[in-house]
């Protein structure tokens, strides 16, 4: 049984700078994997490779055991890997439905309607409501402009959208960093629900409490290498911080 997503000996250098020096890790379907590390540890580079934004210098990415190589973010997306960046990529003045369906609009049934690109607004709104309800997001009205939502609701919309259209792997970049306490909790709940549907979630975060609360396992990156792979009783704040700062040492786990 192969992992949902795995990387083997992944390296990336930008000129003389070694961003990744041979990272190996995996994430299973339905698992939430935390990726933590100090600035410059290689988290962003990992994210960019997995989301198809940059090519690795060497090493492999395996999706369901098959080697994959994404030429563009769209290719990664089509393969089932969605990324929610910190900026969320929402169109602020467009309503929740338009954002939820952006690029995947439902057209009305008949031939002429398809020809002119006539949107089936009612079906799209109904589908948005059911998807958002299923994930228990607290968005009061799907016809609100996305900028009129709270920060947590916006984050929830971006995650729900990514989860709805991809289905295999969800990459989250610092999803709670800009939120208040209650909204952080809502987003963490949402991450749990997404993973419960069988999606593999990779959570990149600086927030140790978030990682401890929502992740089944966490990988610590340090200087472009995996410094630790922590789960169960080893997944503690002390260990995470110890490996992040280099106070604790360990090999590839």
């Amino acid at each position: 049984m192969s992992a949902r997503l795995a990387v083997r000996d992944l390296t990336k250098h930008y000129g003389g700078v070694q961003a990744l020096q041979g990272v190996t890790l995996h994430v299973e379907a339905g698992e939430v994997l935390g990726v933590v590390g100090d600035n410059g540890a290689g988290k962003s580079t990992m994210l960019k490779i997995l989301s198809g934004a940059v090519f690795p210098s060497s090493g492999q990415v395996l999706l369901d055991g098959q080697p994959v190589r994404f030429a563009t973010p769209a290719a990664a997306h089509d393969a089932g890997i969605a990324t929610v960046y910190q900026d969320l990529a929402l169109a602020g003045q467009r309503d929740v439905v338009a954002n939820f369906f952006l690029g995947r609009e439902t057209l009305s049934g008949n031939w002429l309607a398809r020809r002119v690109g006539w949107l089936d607004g009612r079906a799209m709104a109904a589908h948005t409501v059911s998807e958002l309800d299923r994930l228990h997001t607290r968005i009061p009205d799907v016809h609100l402009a996305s900028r009129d939502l709270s920060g947590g609701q916006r984050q929830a919309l971006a995650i729900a959208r990514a989860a709805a259209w991809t289905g295999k792997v969800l990459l989250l970049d610092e999803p709670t960093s800009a939120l208040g306490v209650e909204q952080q909790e809502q987003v963490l709940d949402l991450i749990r629900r997404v993973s419960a549907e069988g999606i593999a979630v990779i959570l990149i975060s600086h927030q140790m409490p978030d990682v401890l609360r929502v992740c089944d396992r966490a990988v610590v990156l340090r200087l472009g290498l995996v410094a630790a792979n922590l789960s169960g009783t080893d997944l503690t704040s002390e260990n995470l911080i110890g490996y992040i700062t280099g106070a604790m040492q360990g090999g590839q786990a």
Partner: protein
Amino acid sequence: MTGTKAGTQAPAVALHHALWLRGRAAVRDLWIGGVLLALIVAFGIGSPYFLTRANWLNTSSTATEVLLLAVGETFVICAGGIDLSVGAVLGFAGTAGAWVMTQLVSGAPTGASVGVVAVGFAAAVAAGGAFGLANGFLVAWAGIPPFVVTLGTLGIATGFGYLLNNGQEISAIPGSVATFGNTNLGGWVPVPVLITAVITIWCGLLLAKTRFGAYTLSIGDSREAVVRAGINDRRYLLEIYTLSGILAGVASVLVMARLGAGSPDSGATDNLNAIAAVVIGGASLFGGRGTIIGSVIGTGIIAVLLTGLVLINVPPFWQEVAVGAVLIGAVYIDQLRNRKTSRK
């Protein structure tokens, strides 16, 4: 509000707030429509000639040209761009259409040569479309800011229009052109008004109800979001600017039909009026927001000001002053209301 109560009250408050925010767009259209209505009533009281058939025909013929340009401009502005070239393209396209007709008849123009007229009209629309295509290509692929691109094509189209006949209008075209332009259905609906109405309704549905319209607004709102969603933003920008050019071409046909000649200067003042109409109608110059109905009302306000002020004996030079003041006032009020109602 105490901490414990906040939890129970929040959903109700959120829903109320949501309905209020949703109503905001409708209110915007409503109040600007109210301004138009108030102007019509005021001019109707101020002049016995305002609410007459003659003035309707006069006002509507001015409005059709501006409206067609404004409709195209609405798409461009909603997509976060600007098309400064539409007026100049109108002038060039009309002159080009007339020039093609003169090449085909090459002699004394006959009364009714339907084929020649059709080819000339098609040439005018194609000339407009070609400029739109060039604008779209330069904006989408060359990445030059729309303001610069269309300021450049404004100059180029103006120059080409003058080059066709040494800066003179071309009036040696078949008389059936003017006949077509001055045909009036039932005394109240000139053919150009009918054509404009059909195109405007079609474009209104295109912007509000179709995928093309949705992408137009989303591109203007956040091009990054559109690109990340895997949408070919360049293709849509190309189509949006081309649509604007084609509508300028259609407007040039209607102007040519009204004047019975192709004149390179015919769109010179329509340019800023069209942009003003779109902005008065509630579209955001930053993109992402705008409606065709808003632009129709904006055009109506400008057309009513232009003809109404003359009828109440205000010197015509005040027209431009009034349009400029309404433009600034409309945008200011819109900003004020946005500031008040928006959560942040």
